[in-house]
């Protein structure tokens, strides 16, 4: 009887529209997941303040771009640099004093940062709804019925891929990238071969903050409004994307984010017995499923320990 209650929308235009929606938002989730992965790779800690660091960056970009009238590209670039500097300072002052192998205090510190940054943003810029201008031109690349590929949708997708390429290049081809990989791989050994672990981790935090700010600046215009709550509701999907892709895989973050976007737009909307109001629940379900079936995600490395 249950099976008879299941129906799936088959309208091709609607399906295409949902796929495009999935890519549009999923690319943004993936980009934010990339920032989570950078911190995780370096420290083994999930940074709960990642979304709020991005939020701060977005508000700085808004203040510069809308308040002061700067070109939005420049405003976002400056806000990326500002949040990177702030994250480096945070790492030095409230993260580094803790034992990096003991994750629980670090997680609690990031939760504290989450609340502190969110409150700071709300007090500084108040809670009125605002709008961050998009970096991309308005209008569509093409449209078929209800399916629209907007320039911003295409722009977010390509930007996410570009961010992934840049991160991979940085890690593979630069000295600091090599040091970062060494620290990620084995902190103690890296230290023994002379790598300055502290500054390397600091670099990881700064890089992640800049990536997160750019991810937020890409995504928020698609969400129509900017308020101090926006990154909290987005971070859940980024976490799901990171978990799905593999918490230490940059490629997995982008792919996982897009898959979460597609699950939300295509699966939740198309299958009749899944209530559409369960979109946040779908993200939680993805995390749960990954946890149970494949804890290392699609592209993450399975860690082994000597016993």
């Amino acid at each position: 009887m249950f099976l008879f209650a299941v129906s799936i929308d088959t309208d091709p235009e609607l399906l295409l529209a949902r796929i495009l929606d999935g890519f549009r938002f999923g690319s943004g989730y993936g980009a934010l997941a990339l920032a989570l992965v950078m911190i995780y790779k370096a420290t083994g800690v999930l940074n709960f303040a990642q979304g709020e660091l991005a939020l701060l960056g977005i508000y700085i970009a808004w203040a510069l771009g809308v308040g002061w009238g700067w070109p939005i590209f420049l405003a976002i670039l400056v806000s990326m640099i500002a949040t990177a500097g702030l994250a480096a300072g945070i790492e030095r002052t409230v993260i580094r004093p803790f034992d990096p192998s003991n994750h629980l205090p670090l997680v609690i510190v990031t939760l504290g940062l989450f609340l502190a940054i969110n409150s700071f943003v709300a007090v500084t810029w108040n809670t009125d709804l605002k709008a961050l201008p998009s970096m991309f031109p308005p209008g569509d690349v093409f449209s078929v019925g209800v399916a629209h590929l907007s320039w911003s949708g295409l722009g977010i997708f390509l930007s996410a891929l570009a961010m992934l390429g840049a991160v991979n290049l940085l890690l593979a081809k630069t000295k600091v990238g090599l040091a970062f990989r060494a620290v990620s791989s084995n902190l103690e050994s890296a230290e023994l071969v002379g790598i300055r672990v502290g500054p390397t981790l600091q670099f990881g935090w700064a890089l992640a903050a800049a990536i997160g700010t750019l991810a937020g600046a890409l995504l928020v215009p698609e969400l129509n409004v900017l308020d101090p709550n926006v990154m909290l509701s987005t971070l859940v999907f980024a976490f799901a994307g990171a978990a799905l892709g593999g918490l230490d895989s940059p490629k997995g973050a982008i792919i996982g984010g897009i898959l979460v976007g597609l699950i939300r737009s295509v699966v939740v909307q198309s299958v009749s017995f899944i209530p559409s109001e369960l979109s946040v629940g779908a993200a939680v379900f993805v995390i749960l499923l990954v946890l149970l079936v494949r804890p290392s995600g699609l592209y993450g490395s399975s860690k082994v320990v000597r016993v």
Partner: protein
Amino acid sequence: MKRSKRWLGLTATALAFSLVAAACGDSGGTTDAAGSTTAAPTTTAASTPTTTASSGGTETTTTAAPTMSGTYDLGGGAVLDTTQCPSSWDSTQGITDSEIRIGISLPQSGALAGFGTIAEGMQIFFDNADPIDGKSVKIIARDDGYESGRTVTNIGEMIDTENIFAFSHIIGSPNNLAIRDTLQEECIPQLFNSTGLPQWGDPENYPWTIGQLLNYSTESLIWCDYLSKELGPGGTVAAIYANNDFGKAYQKFFEKCAPEVGLEIVGTELHDPNADTVQNEVTTLAATGAQAFVVGTSGANCPRSVGGARAAGWDTLIMVSATCQNVGLFWKPLKGASNGIKVITTTKDIGDPRWADDPWVTKVRADLTAAGLDPDAGAQQTGYAFAEQLDHVLREAAASDEGLNRGSLMQATWQQDWVAQNMLPGSTVKTDGANDAFIIEAGEISQLAWDDAAETGTWKAVSDLINQEGQLGKFAG
């Protein structure tokens, strides 16, 4: 060798965080209003003068005003019986030598944080008003993030520590429902709930509680009436509602009246009030090609719904909840994309040139500007308008034979007949207990005209005033 459990632990942490985030809050509604009273005091005053020992709060002095107890005829057979109140109850609790202390719980964080400055607007009104019985009105606000559990906590704390006389304009349907029984038992006024649930018009069972906004049942009826005329027989409508008491009230009433006027509902979506976007739901609705799109949600989800329709290229008549009326708060982010949407307005839009010379609008703008605010931004203007209603009943109760106390306040509230300055011309504020249990019963359909040059929009009336004053009766269950 064994697989590390680190993945498991961290993923479990992420899961826990996600669950917390998913569980945070609801969405709901708010907006305009006003109203108040002409007292017809009919009190059996079995007065037992007692001096109150007011607790906590910033001021703890109390007056020696007599505590009245007895029954109050609210009209239509509804009676307020204060003899059933707790033995420690004091009808003048919260009235100090210098202040009348009013509590409000509202979202200053979360998805509906935009409404958070309503309390500030109310205080600005009272700061610019004459004293009542030589006392100023003090608004004590607490943030509940639109989570009803936190509203319950806030109310409890304020009762215990803030020496509250009455609560007013608490925002949100689930939030007000969560505290109604407690305030009923404690005999503390819960005035002018900033939500349109018809349940607030039930003085026979809940004499201590009244709503203020155009109720969602009436709003839905006006939508049905207007859309059936605009679209003609067989007109198609798709609707999105917040998945909570607020949104489901719209759903219930709209789905009842639409078929009765020949409208066909071709799509319905409920959305998670705390999700970051409603695009997926709106895309599904856009695919129906419905001729009209009803938006039964509030807060940030108003512009998200309309923005979603525009992104899907859905050229349709959009009717949004009256809780989304505030242009500066909700439609400024969308700019021109909000052009042409429709809403039922019940109050004067202070940005509308139509009211440029209106004494009320002039005063609102002047007082907000003097407080260092942009009158066209934020929700302070809404709070300012809300306060006119509260101010009126406080004065009416203060002018009654027994003076201001909780009983006379409720009687003044349920026996109103006056014209509020913030409401549209032709509207009246009338209540008569169970005969007429709703305050705002008139509105006009307005269309948003966005001005790119001025970067603001104004509501332009596209219908005459639809006045249902006195026709709505009471909550029918």
